[in-house]
């Protein structure tokens, strides 16, 4: 077991089952929510303690943009709302 924990976090990002992630800036998040006509808690949640959320340093209240690999459309863009714990 030569590799250490820090590297494990980068492995999470590269895993085929995980999407590309980024934290959406506050202003843009507001715009997105308005165009979706949704309240932020109506977006699917992700816990702040989730490995993926931790890797990108997401805090509760943030909106994450996910680019999922999709068998139908190749890439699908969705969002998750970061909730505490």
């Amino acid at each position, binding site marked *: 077991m030569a590799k250490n924990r820090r590297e494990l976090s980068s492995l999470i990002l590269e895993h085929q*089952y995980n999407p590309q992630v980024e934290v959406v800036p506050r202003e843009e998040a507001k715009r997105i929510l308005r165009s979706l006509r949704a309240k932020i808690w109506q977006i699917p949640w992700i816990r702040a303690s989730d490995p*993926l959320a931790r890797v990108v340093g997401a805090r509760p209240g943030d909106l994450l943009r996910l680019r999922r690999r999709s068998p139908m459309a190749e890439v699908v863009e969705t969002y998750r709302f970061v909730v505490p714990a």
Partner: protein
Amino acid sequence: MSALKEVEPVLERLKGVLPLSLYRELVAKLSKEEMGREKALEVIYETLKLYVKALIDAGEAIGIVTAQSIGEPSTQMILRSFHFAGLREFSMALGLPRMIEIVDARRRPATPLMYVYLDEEHSKSREKAEEVAKRIQSVTLETLARSVDVDYLTFSIVVELDPEQLRYRDISTKQLEKVLAKVRGKGLEVEFDGNVVVFRLDTSDPVKLRKIRDKLLQTRISGIKNVRKTVVRQDEGTGEWYIITEGSNLEAVLQIEGVDPTRTYSNDLHEVAEVLGIEAARTLIANELKKVLDEQGLDVDMRHMFLVADAMTWTGRVRQIGRHGVAGKKESPLARAAFEVTVKNLVDAATKGESEVFKGVFENIIAGRYIPVGTGMVRILMEL
């Protein structure tokens, strides 16, 4: 000249509208064909029209469609299947039991497995793959022992090692000594004498002696915890070698040298959610459901699996579809009562002083109102 150049600005605007795969297909087709601007625009218009027509309308009861699309084929599964198929050396849960296991989100699957894919270097040949398999598989003292004796007179346990096993498992005596040295303390002395290991104990209780013997034999000498068995297999399509393990420990296996950490996965939903996150668990749920149905020769659209996976993971945790999960945590008290344990749900809701807002399907059926589905949804749109 291809038609692509002429309509470039139009295509640019479609980029965010059409799904990427459809967009690429359209561009590929247009660049191949010889046609004028008018004709090309017509093609784009038709594509867009068909795409919009194929979209699900707002208010469509997709949950019902999914339930039926998965439910009906599953009834055929009960009639004709081996629910446990021999996978060479070990069995794995398949068919209906596996499907129930997934939607129930059991803590531990009946047969925890890992599919360990290997990097370039190790996936080419069986020998290299087996090398990695040896690193993964946990080896206990018991597998290395040729004979084990408990000496009740000197209060010691004598383990005679099998040199062939040691060679086969690539374990040097030095390595063994290092691991067993850690066992020392706790009133236990370890002595090495060639191929014989002697454990001296300070207790004379024969029951305790035997208990300690059993514990000692389960001491892990090498490999990863929980991985009981490894099988090296070759993919029939790509000719690539990979490893299937019985027992699962994803976090440790991802860090092993020779393993391709981007493709390796476990069939344990909760473990994947813990190690890789909720998004990976979502993908896993959908893929595993699809695999079960594919194995039975049942063709169900992938989008249905994704809906199930989304419903199970949208709170950020893996929830089962049932009393303790998706159905049991609904907002509406009447909808919860309609599902299972009616009286308890109603009493609990009453003591907590919950109110019913009649936004869902179940509660509106109970109250004899229109359900908010399809045209019944219009009222809600007007409220905005």
